[in-house]
Each structure stands twice: as C-alpha cells, then as structure tokens.
C-alpha cells in the first residue's frame, strides 16, 4: 500500500488533493463521494450579502477560462447555518475561505467562522484592500503582513493565506505572510486578464477583466509555488491549471505539500477522483512508499532563487 497522506501543519490529509475555492460546492456530492478528497474547501464568503458581478461572468480563452464572478455571498449567517453543517457528515477536514475589504471586517469574519466543524481557514488575501488603493492585500509584502497579523489575532485555527499572481514580489509576499502568522500558503489565485469579442467590440466579461485559470495559468502558478517553497518554511499548497496527476506530481516536486484543483472540475467533475487514483498508481509504479517522497525533490542544484530571478529576463 502506498501512503498518500500529507501534513499541512497539524492538519493531516488522507491525500494531497482538494478542490480550489469557488470551484466546489455541496452540489458536487451528487456526482461523486466527497469523502474521497483530502479536504473540502468552500467558496470564499464575505460577512455581508454580495450580489456578484454583471454577466457574462465567464468566457473561454485558448483552452483555459476567464471568470469574474465577483464573490456573490449570502453572508456569514447563512454560511454557518447551512454550509458548515452539510460538511460535518464527512470525516474530511473542512477549510473555509473568507475575504474582506478591510482588515477589521476580514478579522471579524475570521473570528466568526472559527467554529466547531471548521478545520482551517483559507484567507483569500487576493481581494482588494479598500483602505489602501484598492489593490489586493497580497500584491505587496507590507499589506500582506498587516492583514495576516490581524487575522492571526482573530483565530486559533490554522490559517492558510491564498496568494495572488498579480505581483512582482511573490517571494517577499510569501515571507510576509509567514511572518504575519500564516500556517500554510495557497499558491495561487487567478491572474488578471481580458478578452474582447471582435464582432461586438465588447469585453467578453461583463466586468471587463477577470481572472485566468486553467492550463494557461499552470507555468506561472508552478513558478510561484516553487518560489514560495524556497522562501518560507511553511507548507505550500499548489493551485493553478492542474488537470492530470502529472501536473500534481510537478507541483509536489517543486515543493508543494498538497494541491488544489479548480477549473478542471468544471470540465471533468470527477477529475479529482481520477487524479487520486492515478497518483496512487504512479507511486506504486515508481516504487515509492509515500507521496511525501516526492515533495520538494526538484533537482535544482541549489541555484539561488534571487540570482535566478535576476537572470530570468529573456
């Protein structure tokens, strides 16, 4: 028997495969047994009701997709009443994703969702900080550090910080999140993108711009996962463009301890189960006893990341 279990801080997952926030819900239980997953991760909620963005909210681009859903939310009350109890029927750990536009609102929500049945809180700091210039907290190390301190003070549950690719300072932001008290990093959210319908000359999303996810995002998010694993001592959860077990193996080798699967679930709702099975078969075929034997095994000849970044200009 190969061992698929991994540890994210004190949290033990039976396997390293979990859904990405916003691409998973209770509804998927109608298609496969959610107990198969390493963890359950809910769609980001905000404290208060939010409507979400103008339609169209998604479009496809070159074998990937853009979305600008806008975090429609029924608020924390409805969430605690309906969503948390649903997941309590499973042994699988529940990770709750939250977001806020100000530090205080964010921290309050963090406190409010620190309830029984919740095993970790994923803080979507890729959302805009309206107290500063409306840039996402995770764009700068300083705002990352500040918001993480506030969140850390608000809960004793494990805190996973979800980073954004819309930054030139990934390693610094990762360190800032660690310093601020993050127990793990989720790397990464979508990257800001755009598509235009040349016939109508309208943006293909009602919101003009949106986040790119799916295969096109993978090389970017994989690079970030590697940078974060190098820059910090906390577990990294890779996320971006994962479609196959090979993709997962690539993230694990790069240094991720687990991964999240997002858009691929829209294309193949059962893909996470397929990946778990293929991952197990791969480990067996390679004669590896544990999936942990893959983590961080990249042969990078100890090249210094900073130097590499400097040289990376084409």
């Amino acid at each position, binding site marked *: 028997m190969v061992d698929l279990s991994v540890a994210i801080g004190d949290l033990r997952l039976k396997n390293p495969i979990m859904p990405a926030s*916003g*691409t*998973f*819900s209770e*509804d*998927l239980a*109608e*298609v*496969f*047994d959610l107990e*198969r997953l390493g963890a359950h991760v809910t*769609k980001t909620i905000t404290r208060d009701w939010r*409507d*979400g963005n103008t*339609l*169209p*909210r*998604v479009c*496809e681009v070159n*074998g*990937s*997709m853009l*979305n600008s*859903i806008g975090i*429609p939310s029924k608020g924390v009350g409805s969430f605690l009443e309906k969503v948390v109890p649903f997941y309590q029927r499973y042994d699988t750990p529940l990770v709750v994703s939250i977001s806020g536009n100000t530090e205080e609102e964010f921290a309050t929500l963090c406190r409010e969702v620190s309830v029984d049945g919740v095993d970790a809180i994923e803080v979507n700091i890729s959302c805009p900080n309206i107290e500063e210039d409306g840039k996402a907290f995770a764009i700068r190390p300083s705002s990352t550090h500040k918001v993480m301190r506030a969140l850390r003070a608000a809960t004793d549950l494990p805190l996973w910080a979800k980073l954004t690719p819309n930054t030139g300072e990934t390693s610094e932001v990762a360190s800032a999140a660690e310093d601020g008290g993050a127990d793990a990093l989720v790397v990464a959210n979508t990257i800001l993108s755009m598509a235009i319908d040349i016939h109508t000359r309208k943006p293909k999303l009602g919101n003009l711009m949106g986040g790119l996810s*799916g295969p096109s995002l993978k090389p970017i998010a994989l690079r970030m996962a590697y940078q974060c694993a190098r820059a910090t001592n906390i577990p990294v959860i890779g996320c971006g463009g994962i*479609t*196959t*077990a*090979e993709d997962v193996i690539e993230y694990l080798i790069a240094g991720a301890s687990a991964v999240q699967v997002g858009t691929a*679930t*829209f*294309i*193949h*709702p*059962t*893909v996470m*189960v*397929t990946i778990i*099975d*293929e991952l197990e078969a791969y480990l067996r075929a390679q004669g590896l006893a544990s999936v942990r034997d893959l983590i961080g095994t990249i042969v990078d000849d100890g090249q210094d990341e900073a130097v590499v970044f400097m040289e990376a200009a084409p």
Partner: protein
Amino acid sequence: MMDLKETPAPAGEKDDFKSFELALAVKSNDPVNGEYHRLVLEAPEYLLARCQAGQFFHLLCPTANGETPYLRRPMSIYGFYPQQGELHFLYKLAGAGTRALASLTPGDRLNVLGPLGVPFTIEDGWQNLVLVARGVGLATLAPLALEARRLGRKMTAICSARHPDYLMSVDYFRELGADVITLTDAEGTSGVDNLERVIEELIAGGRADAFYTCGSNRILKLLQTIGARHDLPGQIALEQQMACGIGMCHCCVRTFQRDGKLLQLRVCREGPVFDMMEAVAW
C-alpha cells in the same frame, strides 16, 4: 495515463448519485434540417431512469476543425428511451461547440454529464396543457409532451418558426395526441398579437390550465401578461451560459422576482425550469 475525454473515473456506487460523467457511444448524428441536428447516444438504463423532462446534460464537445471548445455546453434532453437505451439531443449550430458536436459520427464517444437541473412538473389539477415554443425550444418541450401523454393530459402545442420548413417535432407532438398550432414568420402568423389571440381562444375554450415555454423573451412577456390576466400558472425553461453546470461557479444566474423581492438564481441548479411568473424578462 488515461485520456479523460474517454474514460471518466468511476464515481462510486450508482445509487448514491444523481448525475454522472460518462463517455457514451454515438448511435447517430444527423441533420434534421439546415440548422438543426439530432444526436442519438447509447446510454445505460440507470442513467435514463434518472432523466426527467426539462433537465439537461452538459456536453464535452470534441476537438474538431482545429477548434477545441474548452467549457462544456448545456443541452436539454430531447428524448430518453430506457427501452431502446437511447438519449436524444436536438441542437442548433451556433458556434465552436455545436459545430464540434456536428462532427461526431456513429461509434465516436461523447463525454456527457447529467442529468442536471430541475425538471418540469405537471401538477394534478393541470389537465389542459399549453406548450408554446419557437425553434430549438421545441427540443426542451418534447419529453414534456411524452410525459403529459403518459399522465393522460390534454395538450395544445403552439409551434413557432421562421418558416414552415423549420417547424420541427410537429408530427411528434401530433403523435402524442396534441393539438398542434403552427405559426411562422413566413406566413405572418407568428407575431405577438396573433399568438395572444390564439392563446386567448384556447383559454376561452377551457383548454389552458397551465403554460410551458422556453427561451424567448417575447413569448415569456406575453405569457406573463396572459397568466396574470387569467390567474393561470406556467413554467419556463431558461438558458444561460454555464461553466460547471452543477451549481458551483455562479456564472449562470438570472434575476427572479419572488415575494416582491428580486433575487438571483442559478439556471443550472435552481433551474433550468422556473415558475413562469417569477422569471424576470430580459
């Protein structure tokens, strides 16, 4: 590693689930007229046993003509026949996805996800049903007509199209015992005023207890007016662009009116069939 388009993962015990991701074999895929195609898939009994009129499948279109549609495409169930082991779709060529569907030939496999969504219901008191649809909307209503026949209800099908040549399923509705009224642009009979006249006549004749329709904004508005005027109920199947088709992504919302409040509901999950009076015309 395996090709996901071909062999989706076994999802657990069948009885536990409502919807399935399956690669089904194509039995036939023929043009019905210039714009429409009928796709017949070989489907297992347990899948067909779960299908209901008004539900849809989310289809993973193949790569064809150098195009690779990425997201799935939603299609209403046009027919499901457990005895023959067949699942039918009627689709109109629109863009890359439907063009790719048209490239399928017998023996190919198509990855489908479903059945999905809330079906039509036929309440006990609804003895005289009026089906109103235009174009490919008829596809959605076809299995409803079959169900109405099974329940022994009377039916009038008002079929509208650009031209008599594009009237589909008319024979099918007749076979099921429906009175069929055809309205076409070409004959100048498909205007809202004429449709209103036709429906008012049905109501006057006691032949309209409930309405079923889909798609068209114009027809929805008219039916809402008539429904309010005579206090008659109805159901509408709506369309909206979909990513997941299951309820996870919230890209497919539409606005509805309930208890005086506006709310947003997901077409894939709370629909595609909605109360006709709650839908907000767009």
